[in-house]
């Protein structure tokens, strides 16, 4: 958890408004390969974060420098690049609007699971067992976003003021496919007009408190 401090410190000034969003975007091709994009957008709270960088310490946490945050991103990307089956690993950090993006391509959805595990290990954020966040199968033909306790565990260790950060924040899941979607197990998921994208937007608070908040199984026609 201590390695997540740079992120937590960035989040602290949002206590008053809780305005940020996370977008998890995956494109899965018919052969199981695809692209992954993870965006953390603090743009709505940029002015508060800028003020925060003027301080040395907030709630007992040392405020990280932009350089330190860059180093953490470099480290995460360094870990990802070592994983076989993963390519085009990049990150972008926009310190004017505080938008951070991580992208990569994968040969198989299992590579993506390994990438997420490795990122968490590099951040020392979760426990040790290997998890399956995503699954894609040709027969039977489905894509699955499994629920996990990654966020919940982090949430349980937070103080009340840190928890308040997540009130009002949003988490968006965007899953794109070459095939046409038939159904999603989660009735709150919206299917695109062309039936090739599943869209699910929910409160960050739900993600932090419910293990299965992100769970959905998409079946194809």
């Amino acid at each position, binding site marked *: 958890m201590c390695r997540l401090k740079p992120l937590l410190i960035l989040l602290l000034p949002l206590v008053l*408004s809780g*305005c940020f*969003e996370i*977008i998890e*975007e995956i494109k899965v091709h018919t052969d199981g390969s695809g692209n992954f994009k993870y965006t953390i*957008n603090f*743009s*709505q709270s*940029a*002015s508060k974060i*800028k*003020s925060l*960088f*003027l301080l040395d310490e907030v709630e007992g946490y040392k405020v990280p420098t932009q350089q330190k945050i860059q180093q953490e991103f470099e480290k995460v990307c360094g*870990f990802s690049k*070592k*994983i*076989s*089956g993963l390519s085009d690993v990049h990150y972008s950090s926009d310190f004017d*609007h505080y*938008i951070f993006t991580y992208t990569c391509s994968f040969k*198989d959805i*299992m*590579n993506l699971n*390994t990438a997420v*595990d*490795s990122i968490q*290990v*590099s951040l*020392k954020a979760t*426990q*040790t*067992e*290997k998890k399956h966040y995503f699954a894609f199968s040709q027969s039977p033909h489905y894509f699955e976003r499994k629920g996990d306790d990654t966020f919940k565990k982090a949430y349980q260790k937070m103080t009340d003021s840190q928890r308040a950060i997540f009130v*009002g924040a949003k988490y*968006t899941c*965007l899953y*794109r496919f070459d095939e046409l979607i038939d159904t999603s197990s989660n009735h709150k998921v*919206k299917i*695109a*007009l*062309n039936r*090739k*994208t599943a*869209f699910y937007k929910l409160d960050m608070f739900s993600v932090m408190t419910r293990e299965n908040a992100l769970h959905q199984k998409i079946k194809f026609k």
Partner: protein
Amino acid sequence: MKHLLFLPLFLIQTLTFGQDLSQKISSEATLLITFNGGKIIESVSLEELENSLLFEEVIHNIIRGEIKDVKKFSDFGVDFSRHLYLVNEFQDDVKMHYFTYHIKDLQSFESLMKKESGLGEYEEKRNIKSISYSSYSKLYWNNDYAFFITGDYIGSEYSYPGYESNEESYYYEQKEETTISVEIVEDDYENKNTDEAERKRKEERRKREEEEYRKREEEKERKRREEQEKREAIVNEALWQRAQIFFSDELKESKRYFTSNFDANADISLWYENSPDHFGRQTYRRYNYPGFLFGYFFGFGQVFNGSISSHLYLEKERIRLESSIDYPTVLGEAYERIFSKKLDKQCSRLIRENDIGYISLSASTKDFLIEYPQIVQQVFSDYDSTYQEEYGWLADLFTLIIDEDRIAEVVTGDVVFVLNDLTEKEIEYYGYDYDENYNSERVLKTRTEVLPDFSVFVGCKDQDFVKRTFDLGVKKEWLQIVKNGYLLTDRRKEFPFKIYFTYSNNLLISTTSADRMEAYFSGKVQDAVSSDKKKLMRSNSGAMFLNFDRLVTALLKTDLRSRDQKLFTSIQNELTTVQAGMNYKNGKVLISAFTPVPSSTENGAKYILQIMDKVIGVDKKD
């Protein structure tokens, strides 16, 4: 003769305490909160309380419906017309909190407690009845009074922090191994043609690692349980020992610091013993770290590190709070010298009647610089005497280097912060829009943010120094010259508002409005604050005023969330103002604060209940 006059008072006090549970409280207590039930009930009846949303909330939510049969106060069997006490006590290895009160109707009390005995085990030992909810939480009672106590283990031998830090380092070590494990699995996945022997070797290694991990986990769990049991046994025994003392007369004659500060006329009182001598230095560091931190930098932390005694009076026309902070060391005298100065009249002239609030502080810079080395030396000696000699030397060096008179010219020690208003500002940000196929587009959007409109006045008599500082700021392009002042150059757009500076009448002024800066510069402020508020600032070393009504009105004009909007709307007409003054006298800090009770409400107790009911009502409607 004089002594004879005090005799009746002494007898009254002795009798009051003689009948009171305060005699059961140990001198080891560090926090005491008393509720003067009789006085509170005089102001707001039990029936009124029973019909309030607050009562319903306490019964249904805080007690979480566990005591289902309680419909009114009499169902508790507790004597609410007498004092109720909430206490914190520290023992060697156990920190205790207890709540004690008189029993009015033993049958109702026991009937309620035994009916809910499913919550804990009932037992009767040495004429003390008890229900044990856990090793850390017990209720004891006899025919007259009850004693609910909880305890936490704070010793070092089986302490939580030591255990957790071991777990954490061990935990990280495991994660590093997992990285290897994850990559091995991945290699297997990718390289299906790997040699069979190599695959087996890797598989065996993985199994071996998993087995070692499982064993370590089991060992860790065994140790955790063992330590947990030891902690429970220690706390359990400590609570029982404390209960036995409580139900005996053992503490009857012992000296208690808080009794000298006890005020029978207060509705609620708080006493907090906050000194390293009382807590023990290690405990003090652990529980008073923020105070120590400030003390470390400025020595000011010690201002609030004395014993605090506070009394709340819920009167007819106002709610009044009287507090005093008594120092465990000689620092009180030093602070009294520093804060003996009164605020420059010019500061109070610049406050407007429609400003939302202000905080002022007046200290003698010269006295501060003279006393500072001694304060820091004393603060450090209180916590750790290892480097006492070094601190002494540094204190002398500080005295040699500093020119108190010259610095006091530049910084007089008067500081005022004024919250003039709240303003809204359109903030641009990037968000994402989606078409019917959820193709995303990054677009520039706007939202409204609430910002404070404020001013700060700092006393400064050296006009030449200020002018040279401004000139240097302009030369370095930190400042831009504007009419009658300067504007801070914000090239990196770090500030969400503009900041102006000016100098006038021995005050260095910074503010967020150009118009206000000009008004301050000319010294002609329209709608100046009333004389009573000016007096509040001038007659106290520190003062605070907040107009809640104006604050809520300003907040309601902004873009609030629906729940907050409802909340502020519901209490807008209830809120008035609050003001406080702080002075140093006889080595003590004296703080006096009050808020007027609206004429439509009978008294302070009903006023508080009314506001609480409105706040609860908002959530109920939601």
